[in-house]
């Protein structure tokens, strides 16, 4: 065996803290190392060709690269190995940048550590075995989870590329949060006017199949071959028969708060989510339906001329195969009643931004009029409070919800335009307008009269006057003093939050959530729509707070990722799969239940013992299913199960090298 060691300076990144010369010199004395060299930038073309030349000149068959994290450049070096006719898994990386030079200051100690890390890599690579990957077919159908604007966009893009898409939405209509909005910043386009055509397009697209009022119940499989169980909740209305006349809705005697209007209006127990709903077929909310509670009523069934009402409908489990999954599950708004100082839920005139949005909407509960919920009169003085539950480590979410600055500016503008004479005061900590034309939009809001006060509100309380106004106590950082404003209406910019079931769904999909419950992308900068799970992509706010254009562009990005996968038509299997040493294996199958991919099964092998054939059970790994976690190898008693790239021999060698 002829191991070559290459130590990277990474410019000054490594060289400043690690004595690169010493590491190289020391590497030369390590077992089986026949060549060592330091290079300024190994990842550069020059660096790569240096390695290439050394492989030729010194007939190297294994390479150790002491440089940055393998998560950074492992593929780069693996490709180089392949180009040199060596197995890509014959290169081992010693992470002397992220794990050494960047985290230490004492050059002497850092050098000792770097040497150890190189030693470890040399020890590991000495036992490397060649690994290859297989080509696996891809099911060319995509699943989009979530029918908000991001999900719709992703579905449309994939469908337009010619691939079938299933769009799963938990509500009875697609549209998501955007359907609730009145206008969109910074253009003040009517939200419905730009959304509805997309919804209709999605519903009518020949490549798109909608599953509304449905949820993902189970996911198994892997990239290119996911098996997904969709739970189609019973709508109690036969969509084939229903003609959407709405008679059932009119006749339904049961009224419940309308979630779509944040509870500020009523809907029936049989209802369509909103007038432009797609599909525009009502569903029966069984939790509130009198028939389902008592077995009596049945008015809707009586009035329905097409006989579409079907009380006996059952939830249905539908199983489908997909090659790729786009997650676009969106967000929820944090109900701000946890912050007592803002009196939300205590004073009717303290409302959330979405409630104001609904009021501003012509099809909303007030038909576009802004009123004080307490008395129905028009408010003259409105106080907006920013960062309610956002940027709040103590009692909310630590992150910035990103869109509140702009929609508040939008609200002040809309108020000023629709109802001249209203005064808008905005209490804020920072105003963030990073986005095309956002600063201009904000400026416009100020120019139109919105009064911005830098400082947070500490208390909202009843003023006790005849108008039942509220007193907002805040601070003006410019004037350096406390200020009090008697307001008619207080609007809270509530925080965007991950869906409460994000973690559960993430668990099914094999993608992780960050501390805030948003899905984690594969790489913060370079792979922002991919996830750790191959074939699962992110779109929209489920990944973190975003505005509409961002959500839409990410959705298109996710769609393209899926399309790329479908165009290729094949995926490469993970090369670092589990493998069974059949001679050692007892066939006890303790490993079988450990495998999350059901990749392990039992097979019978025939051996010859003293000239006689004998059958024996052993475990066997389906390389297509195995994702290479090694949980089986960690459990195997006899050591028959091993993991390519991380064999027991290699890991032991690493442990022994230290």
């Amino acid at each position, binding site marked *: 065996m002829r191991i070559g060691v290459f130590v990277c300076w990474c410019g000054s990144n490594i060289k400043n803290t690690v004595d690169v010369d010493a590491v190289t010199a020391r590497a030369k004395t390590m077992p089986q190392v026949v060549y060592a060299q330091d290079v300024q930038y190994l990842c550069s073309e020059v660096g790569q060709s240096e390695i290439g030349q050394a492989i030729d000149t010194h007939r190297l068959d294994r390479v150790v690269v002491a440089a940055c*994290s*393998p*998560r*950074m450049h492992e593929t780069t070096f693996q490709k180089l190995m392949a180009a040199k006719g060596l197995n890509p898994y014959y290169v081992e990386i010693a*992470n002397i*940048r*992220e*794990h*050494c030079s*960047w*985290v*230490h*200051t*004492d050059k002497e*100690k*850092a050098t*000792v*550590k770097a040497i*150890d*890390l190189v030693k*470890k890599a040399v020890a590991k690579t000495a036992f490397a075995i060649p690994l290859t990957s297989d080509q696996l077919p891809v099911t060319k159908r995509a699943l989009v989870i979530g029918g908000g604007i991001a999900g719709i966009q992703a579905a449309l893009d994939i469908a337009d590329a010619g691939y079938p898409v299933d769009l799963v939405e938990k509500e009875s209509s697609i549209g998501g949060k955007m359907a609730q909005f009145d206008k969109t910043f910074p253009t003040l386009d009517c939200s419905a006017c730009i959304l509805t055509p997309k919804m209709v397009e999605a519903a009518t697209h020949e490549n798109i199949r909608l599953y509304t009022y449905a949820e993902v119940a189970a996911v198994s499989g892997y990239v290119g071959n996911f098996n997904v169980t969709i739970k189609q909740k019973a709508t109690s209305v036969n969509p084939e028969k229903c003609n959407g006349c709405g008679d059932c809705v009119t006749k339904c005697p049961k009224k419940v708060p309308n979630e779509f209007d944040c509870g500020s209006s009523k809907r029936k127990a049989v209802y369509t989510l909103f007038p432009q709903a797609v599909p525009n077929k009502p569903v029966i909310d069984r939790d509130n339906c009198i028939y389902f509670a008592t077995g009596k009523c049945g008015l809707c069934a009586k009035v329905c001329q097409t006989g579409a009402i079907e009380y006996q409908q059952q939830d249905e489990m539908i199983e489908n195969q997909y090659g790729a999954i786009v997650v676009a599950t969106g967000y929820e708004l944090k109900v701000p009643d946890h912050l007592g100082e803002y009196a939300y839920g205590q004073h009717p005139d303290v409302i959330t931004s979405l409630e104001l949005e609904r009021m501003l909407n012509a099809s909303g509960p007030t038909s576009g009029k802004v009123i004080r919920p307490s008395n129905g009169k028009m408010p003259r003085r409105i106080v907006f409070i920013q960062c309610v539950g956002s940027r709040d480590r103590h009692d909310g979410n630590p992150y910035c919800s990103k869109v509140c600055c702009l929609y508040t500016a939008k609200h002040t503008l809309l108020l000023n335009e629709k109802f001249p004479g209203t005064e808008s005061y905005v209490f804020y900590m920072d105003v963030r307008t990073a986005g095309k034309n956002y600063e201009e939009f904000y400026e416009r809001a100020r120019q139109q009269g919105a009064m911005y006060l830098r400082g947070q509100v500490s208390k909202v309380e009843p003023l006790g006057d005849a108008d039942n106004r509220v007193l907002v106590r805040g601070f003006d950082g410019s004037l350096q003093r406390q200020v009090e404003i008697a307001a008619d209406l207080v609007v809270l910019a509530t925080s965007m939050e991950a869906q409460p079931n994000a*973690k559960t769904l*993430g*668990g099914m999909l*094999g993608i*992780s*959530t*960050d*501390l805030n419950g948003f899905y*984690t992308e594969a790489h913060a900068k370079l792979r922002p729509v991919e996830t*750790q*799970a191959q074939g699962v992509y992110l779109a929209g706010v489920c990944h973190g707070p975003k505005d509409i254009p961002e959500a839409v562009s990410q959705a298109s990005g996710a769609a393209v990722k899926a399309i790329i996968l479908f165009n290729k038509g094949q995926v490469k299997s993970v090369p*670092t799969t589990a493998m069974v040493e059949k001679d050692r294996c007892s066939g006890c199958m303790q490993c079988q239940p*450990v495998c*999350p*991919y059901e990749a392990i099964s039992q097979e019978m092998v025939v051996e010859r013992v003293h000239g006689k054939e004998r059958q024996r059970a052993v475990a066997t790994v389906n390389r297509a299913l195995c*994702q*290479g*976690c*090694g*949980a089986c*190898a*960690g*459990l195997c008693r006899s050591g028959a199960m091993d*993991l390519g*790239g*991380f064999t*027991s021999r290699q*890991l*032991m060698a*690493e*442990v*022994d090298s*230290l």
Partner: protein
Amino acid sequence: MMNEIYEPKIVAFCCNWCSYAGADLAGTGRLKYPENIRIIRVPCSSRVEVAMILRAFQNGADGVLIAGCHPGDCHYDTGNYHTRKRIHLLTSLMDFMGLSPERLWLRWISGNEADKFQATVTAFTQELRAMGASDKVRDLRCSR
């Protein structure tokens, strides 16, 4: 000599997807921590065999850190649950045998918890320094 700080040797097994990434992020963020740790990369914390942990101790490690994704965040779905169970039992058995279970840590460190990685390594190093050297699990033929 007595005043000299004992510099413990720490062997860490970090899962590729969370903890190794967390350690990488600590590097990217230039977060400083003691030099005592040597990280072995594993695809999942469940790949670590009990034998490897004991082997590290035999070879003179003063502490072994297993770091994986937070429960529920495992890249492989369930791997860290297995780790959790195995290490739980191992810790308990080590305690039962008086083999200093406090020298074996299992921690959940996600890919964006660079600060937690830093804090964990720093705290572990400090605690091991305070504990000093131990020969309870070391093969006496291995130097410290």
